[in-house]
């Protein structure tokens, strides 16, 4: 094994893993608290990259202002998705006594299809868009090269993850979110409106997806399909870490996933690296089989007696 190779791949793993961490935390927060299987997370991720590309290339906005605006746009879209699609469907499911799990999943899948194609149609003349305003360059540190973009992305992402952890642990809002995550029906009894908390977690989770999307778009470019591969990683991170885990635990798992994936290139052909991630999920599911009833209880939160039982 070549030490330089190992170190460089480990560095690559940190940047990739941090990206997985950020989207895993965002996706996990939405899933764990609201029970919405929000795979349209891929669309907020993609939209943010396109918004940043438009703002920086068409309107000349400074990069960081565009990052903020794009992430806010992603947050707004996430909130709208919950308010306009998930909430009405959820209420309808409760009215007719149907399990909302599958309904949410199908609705979210529909949002992915619509969102992806809407973006592709809107930007038909250009299949990808670059995000301008960030001058990326390589910095040599001994035998390894670190790019300025990766350094910034890692710093910003971990700052956001730690901030979220602090909010969840030390603020009133965080306590309300955790209360709803634990049992939204019980939270009603102490005056918390779960639907508002759902909006908050959709905003936070989508904001995080937006930040991740903008960084990925800067590294490569914004494309209509760019949100789908990260969704897979977000799913793996959220499931393996656990839906009620703290953001730090989820993020560390994302980081570990990135490292395992990157370092697997030492032993496997590079193109097989994503399979390692799939193998991790497969192994996890095999070792800790998820019962459908548990999933339903966790996602739908409408059978507290079953949860108690």
């Amino acid at each position: 094994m070549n030490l330089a190779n190992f170190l460089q791949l480990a560095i690559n793993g940190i940047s990739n893993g941090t990206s997985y961490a950020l989207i895993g935390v965002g996706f996990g927060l939405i899933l764990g608290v609201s029970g919405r299987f929000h795979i349209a997370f891929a669309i907020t991720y993609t939209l943010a990259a396109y918004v940043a590309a438009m703002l920086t290339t068409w309107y000349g906005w400074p990069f960081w202002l565009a990052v903020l605006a794009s992430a806010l746009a992603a947050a707004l879209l996430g909130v709208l998705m919950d308010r306009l699609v998930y909430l009405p469907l959820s209420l309808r499911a409760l009215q007719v006594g149907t399990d909302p799990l599958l309904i949410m999943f199908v609705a979210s899948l529909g949002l992915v299809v619509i969102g992806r194609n809407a973006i592709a149609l809107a930007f038909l003349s250009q299949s990808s868009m670059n995000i301008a305003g960030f001058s990326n360059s390589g910095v040599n540190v001994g035998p390894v090269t670190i790019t300025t973009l990766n350094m910034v992305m890692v710093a910003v992402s971990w700052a956001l993850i730690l901030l979220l952890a602090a909010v969840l642990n030390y603020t009133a809002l965080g306590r309300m979110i955790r209360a709803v995550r634990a049992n939204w029906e019980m939270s009603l009894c102490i005056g918390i409106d779960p639907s508002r908390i759902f909006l908050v977690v959709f905003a936070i989770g989508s904001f995080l997806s937006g930040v991740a999307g903008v960084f990925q778009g800067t590294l490569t470019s914004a494309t209509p399909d760019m949100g789908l591969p990260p969704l897979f990683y977000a799913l793996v991170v959220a499931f393996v870490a656990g839906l009620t885990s703290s953001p730090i635990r989820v993020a560390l798992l994302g980081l570990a996933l990135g490292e395992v994936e990157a370092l697997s290139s030492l032993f496997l052909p590079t193109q097989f690296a994503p399979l390692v991630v799939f193998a991790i999920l497969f192994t996890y599911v095999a070792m800790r089989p998820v019962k459908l009833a548990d999933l339903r209880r966790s996602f739908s939160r409408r059978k507290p007696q079953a949860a108690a039982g």
Partner: protein
Amino acid sequence: MEVRNGGRGFGLTRKEMLAGLGSAAAMAGMSGSARAAQLAQIAELIGVDAKHSGKGLTFDIGMSAPVTGPAGIFGSHVTDLPKLAFSHIEAMGGPKFNLILKDNKSGDPQAGVQSVRELGFAHVPMMLTSEVADLAAELTGIKQYKIFSLDGSGGTSLFGQHRSYFWGTIAITPNDAIPGVVKYMLKAMPGAKKISFCGWDLGGLSDAVEDDAQRYFQGTNFVLGANERSKMGATDYSANIQKIKSSDCDVVWAIVYAEDIGYFMKQYSTSGINKPVFTFSNPVAAQQIAGPAYNGIYLAFDLFDPKVPSNPWSKFFVDEYTAHVSSTVPPENYGANTYEDTFIFWQCIMRVLKAGGNPKDGVQLDAALRKNPKFPSLYGGSSSAVGEIEFDLETHSVKHRPMMIAQYQNGKVEQKAHFDIGGADFKMLG
């Protein structure tokens, strides 16, 4: 009165020609006489047979292109080219064409199969296809429905050769360019020894590229360093690049296409490696993605130079493209091939009509090509004669093709060497 085309014996009546040219000039909104004269000259040069030109007929022509998906920019670009050709053909006294466009969704095999099936159900006799008939997904349908098909963006490659009704009108990428690249490196990079690859993982096709390269490395000092493979559509090349870096190579061959080469270069430029990179296409989308990171890359592929058109037809094509298709994106070889392919269809139609056959039968159109595999071309030629494209009846690919090595710098391409398929007639420039 007929305008004769030398010894070919094809002719076009002056009346027919002027009628057609007048309408084309009016459509173009430019000086009628100048354009009409140009069209008349082209018609003569390419040997239009007025008696069997198909005037008054209408043909359905299918097109399977990546309208959406990662290569969508390419698709939106090339779909304009047959339309440009249609207007010219009609102006030259030829038939009308009706384009039936199908989206292969950038290499989606299911979309490709569906496209060719729909074209087959519509009894379309001829079809413009791309990306080696959507990475071979369309070949079975092309054979089943007997659709005479030309591919000017992917050609036959190695896996699309000898296939019924399917012909490639571009050099095989990268295999046809490899000998020229090896010759160029021997002359221009005498210190280079180790070459690392990063290519799409296409299984046996990737092996064939490696075998070809190794074959041409024999007798030189070149050895293969890292041989990295990536999946099509990859955007993260960090692990591949690290392995290339650790191979301590002198030259990199990036055998990835479409937008992927843009992503590769974007990451390569910040990797700390400053070795020259060769690639085998020059997609506009990749240039846009990579931006300044694309500077310095060496390009080895078919030579279609819009700045120095090689014959009157290619000059006319460049002018018309600039006026009607895009004034910002210069025409490149993919667009030129698609335009030229439409004229090959017309030539086959004229031949079938002359033979008293049915030009709406893909089998007869295919037979017309087999009977005489030579056609006028935008490539090559001289100031007074169009070039010639000749198909290899065995492989179904082009027999000859002007090719080049060039270097990209800030949107400009500086040509470094010219050669033909297999490195023949290799010539350093400058």
